[in-house]
């Protein structure tokens, strides 16, 4: 019994020590990052090209929210370079806006990297997910800060279900 209590106490000490090390290291890391001229912004939306150094400046752009009728007008006129569906792969597979690319938020970087050469920087991109979700805005910010043109990064906030209900083209 005494041995068991001793083991529990040792384990508790070990865990407390680990927490102390992690908290101290995190604190120092955050302070160092703040002082570093090549710092990484904590808010990823403020990161330009992740490959960029502090001396590079890709400018700043803001995604623009649009409604379904505006999105459809652009689609109908053939002005949209790509619709970007930021829902999970399985949801995308069950149906999406015609010609859309699937870029879930956690895959934004690798997909961007692999398609980089095929995506015109001055094209019009419309991002969407479900109604009320955040991932379309997240990925739109990511594209926005990777050199795409300010004003051409649009977010269709009504989402896929609304588009489908309106009877607009899906596949």
């Amino acid at each position, binding site marked *: 019994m005494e041995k068991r209590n001793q083991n529990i106490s040792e384990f508790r000490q070990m865990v407390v020590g680990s927490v102390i090390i992690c908290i101290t290291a995190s604190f120092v890391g955050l302070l160092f990052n703040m002082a570093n001229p090549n710092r*990484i912004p904590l808010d990823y939306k403020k990161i330009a090209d992740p490959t960029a150094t502090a001396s590079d400046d890709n400018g700043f752009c803001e995604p623009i929210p649009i409604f379904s009728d505006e999105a459809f007008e652009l689609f109908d006129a053939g002005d949209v370079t790509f619709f970007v569906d930021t829902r999970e792969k399985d949801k995308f597979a069950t149906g999406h806006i015609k010609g859309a690319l699937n870029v879930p938020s*956690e895959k934004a970087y690798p997909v961007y990297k692999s398609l980089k050469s095929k995506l015109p920087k001055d094209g019009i991109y419309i991002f969407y997910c479900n109604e009320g979700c955040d991932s379309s805005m997240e990925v739109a910010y990511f594209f926005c800060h990777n050199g795409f043109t300010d004003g051409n990064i649009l977010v269709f906030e009504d989402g896929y279900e609304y588009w489908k209900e309106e009877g607009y083209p899906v596949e």
Partner: protein
Amino acid sequence: MNEKPVKDKISFGVREFFSLFFRILLGLIFIYASYSKILNPYSFYRATLEYELLPLFAVPVFSIILPWIEMFTGLCLIFGALYRSSNLIFFVMLVVFEMGIIINLLRGRNMDCGCGLPLDLIGISEKLTWMTVLRDSVFIFMSAYLVFLSKPRFTLDRLLLRRKSAKKLAQSTDKPETS
């Protein structure tokens, strides 16, 4: 006259040797790895993104904090400060890294390890392969040895403990005996 002498001799056997060897080796490897990640934060940020295991918003914080945890833990391990705790952090970190590597190998990804080790200097590719898994398994073995079997010697913890007990002993001998 018949009192046994206080055992103050430092015993140093095979277990103590491996504990010290693994501890210094792992500590140095992690300090080097963290140093290169701290110097090139964007490069580590990119590597973290490529693993596709964390949501986008968590990647910057993770890539800022992790190298410092590695650095602190490496230093603690080498100096033997919070010895057991630093071993535990190492062990958990290595297991998590190993899982991340295996997941990406099973996904069939051809990517850089992002481990921050100078492997290219000795002609070993930094690409993720099953050799990386094997290498990390060796590190996990060393770390597990330190957590579960090690006999810590030459640690700051022991030094402080000895001083504390010596002080206590001195205090108790200074006290007048009460009968």
